[in-house]
C-alpha cells in the first residue's frame, strides 16, 4: 500500500510504496516540474493521460503548465486507500480526473483521448503493464477498442501482428485490410502524412 510522509524539508509530502519512495525525497516539487516541462509541446491536445499517481506533485505541475487541458491519471486502485485518494485530489480535483484501476479488464473500456504520459518513479510493475495496455500494446484490448470505434476490418486483422512486434502505425500498415474498407483508406491517407 502507498503511504504519505514528509520529505527532508519537513514540509513537502512524499509517497512511499512498501518503504520505496515514489518521488524524490529531497525536492519532489522540483522533480515534478522538471518532468512536466518535458510535455510543453502537448499544449494543443484537449486532454492528457498520465499513468502513475505517487504523491501527485507531477499532476499539480502538469496542471499548472496545461491549465486548459483535462488530465486523467490512471493508477493501481488496490494500492491507494480512499482516504489517501481524497488527500491527493485536493487542489487539483477540478482539472484532474482520478481513474483507479482494479484490473486490466477495466482498461478495455478506457477511452484514449490524448497522449499517454508515464510517470515512472511512481509506477509499480502492475502500473507499467497498464501503461503498455493503454498505449495499445495488448492485442485483446486493442481489438475491443478498434471495434468500439467501428473499425471492424482492422479489429479482425489485428491478430495477424506477429508476437513481439509493437502495435504501431507501421505494423498496422502492413496488415492486409480489405481495400474497400474505411480503415484501408485511412491507412492510405495517413501513409501520405508520414511520407
Amino acid at each position, binding site marked *: 500500500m502507498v503511504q504519505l510522509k514528509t520529505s527532508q524539508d519537513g514540509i513537502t509530502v512524499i509517497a512511499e510504496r512498501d518503504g520505496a519512495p515514489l518521488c524524490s525525497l529531497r525536492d519532489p516539487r522540483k522533480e515534478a516540474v522538471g518532468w512536466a516541462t518535458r510535455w510543453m509541446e502537448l499544449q494543443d491536445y484537449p486532454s492528457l493521460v498520465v499513468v502513475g499517481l505517487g504523491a501527485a506533485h507531477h499532476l499539480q505541475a502538469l496542471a499548472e503548465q496545461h491549465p486548459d487541458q483535462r488530465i486523467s491519471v490512471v493508477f493501481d486502485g488496490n494500492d491507494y486507500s480512499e482516504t489517501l485518494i481524497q488527500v491527493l485530489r485536493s487542489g487539483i480535483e477540478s482539472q484532474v480526473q482520478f481513474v483507479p484501476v482494479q484490473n486490466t479488464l477495466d482498461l478495455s473500456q478506457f477511452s484514449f483521448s490524448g497522449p499517454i504520459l508515464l510517470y515512472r518513479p511512481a509506477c509499480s510493475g502492475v502500473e507499467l503493464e497498464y501503461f503498455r495496455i493503454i498505449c495499445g500494446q495488448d492485442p485483446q484490448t486493442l481489438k475491443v477498442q478498434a471495434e468500439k470505434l467501428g473499425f471492424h476490418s482492422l479489429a479482425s486483422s489485428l491478430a495477424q501482428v506477429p508476437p513481439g512486434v509493437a502495435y504501431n502505425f507501421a505494423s498496422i500498415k502492413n496488415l492486409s485490410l480489405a481495400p474497400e474498407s474505411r480503415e484501408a*483508406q485511412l491507412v492510405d491517407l495517413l501513409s501520405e502524412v508520414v511520407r
Partner: protein
Amino acid sequence: MKILALSLLRVGDFFQHLHLAKQLRGSGHEVHFLIHDECQSLVKLCTDYEFHIFPRKKLGRQLVSRHTHPLMPFHLLDEWLKKMNQLEFDEIQNWTHDRFSAKLMGMLSAPSKRGALMVQGKDVTCWRPGLRYLDEHWGASHTPTLSYIEALALAMEIPAVSPAPFRLNSTGPVVLQVTTSDVKKTWSLRSWIQLASLLADQGEEVVVVTAPEELISVSSGGWDSRIQVRGLDWIKTWDLLKRAKLLISGDTSVLHLAVHAETRVLGLYLGSANAKKTGPFQYKARTLTPQIECHPCYHRSDCRSQDHRCHDLITIQMVMDEFKLLLKCEVNSSYETQVGLVLAEQVQGPHQNPSSNIFENIIENRFNENGDSYGPRP
C-alpha cells in the same frame, strides 16, 4: 456555390491561391479554404474566407510517437473527415495537385470535384484539358508558357484571373525580405546589407522584415544603424506592406503577400526560383534573374557548382537600377496574362482521359526524373 479549395502546400502557395479565391468570390461563390495546421496563422490574416484546418502536424506527431495509442490517429482523421463531410460543399477543388491531396479529395464528399482525385489508390481524375496542361507542363523540368496561378486557373476552369494592381506610394519604407526557404534562393546577407546602406544613403527608410524566430540570426548580420530589422507576424507584416513604398525580396511568401497588399514588388529570383512560374502576379512587378545556363535549378538538388555562383550575377547596382526604375514607374513591360491564348491551343483536338495509370506514372516520373514534387514550393 459553396466551394472548398484544398490549399495544402506552403504559405507562399496559399498567397498565390488567394488570386483564384478572389476571382471565385467575385463571381458570387462562397469560398472555403482547407489548409494545414502549420499555416493556421493565416486565418487571422484573411478574414474574408472560411478556413478549415487539416491536422497534418498533429497526425504526423501521433503516427511516430511512443506516447500515442496506435488507433488515435485513425480516430482523429476519421472524426475530422466526418465533420468535414457534414459541411455539404457543392464543389471541392484540388489546388494542391499532389498525391496526398488527390487521396484526401477521394475521402471528402461533394457533388462536384475538380482536380487530381484518387479513390482506393486509383486515379479517377476527370482530366479536363486545362488540368492536363497543368499536369504535363508544370514539372520542374519544363518551362511553361503560363505562370502557376494562370495554369491552376486554367486547370480549375476559373476564368479571367488578372494580375493584381499596385499602389504608387511616394512615402513609406522600402521593405527588404532577406531570407527565403532555401539557401539556393537566398541572396547573400552581405549583399543585402550593402543594398540597405545604399538605400539609406539615398534617404530611404529601410525596414528589414523577417519571421520572429529568425530575428536573432538576421539582425546579427552587421546592419547599418539606420536600418530597422523587425521580426513580424503575418498581421504586422501585412500592415507594414500596406504602407510600404516597395518590397525587395527573393521568391518568398512575403513577396506573394505584398502583391495582395498592392505594394510594388522587385523580386530577386535565384537558384531554383523560377520567375516564369512563381513570379509576382502583379502588373509591372519586376524580377531580376541570373543569366546562367543552370538557372533555374531543381528545388531538391544541391547547387551544381556548390558556390551558388548565380547569386553573384545579381549585383547591388542592378538592384538599385531596377529600384529607381520602379520608383519612377518607367517600367515598360507589363504583365499580360496568356490564359486565353493557351486555352485556345489546348482545346483543339479531341479530349480523352489519359490512360488509366497515367497520373501515377507522371507522379513517379516526376519524382524519379528530378526529385521534385508536384506543386511549387517558393
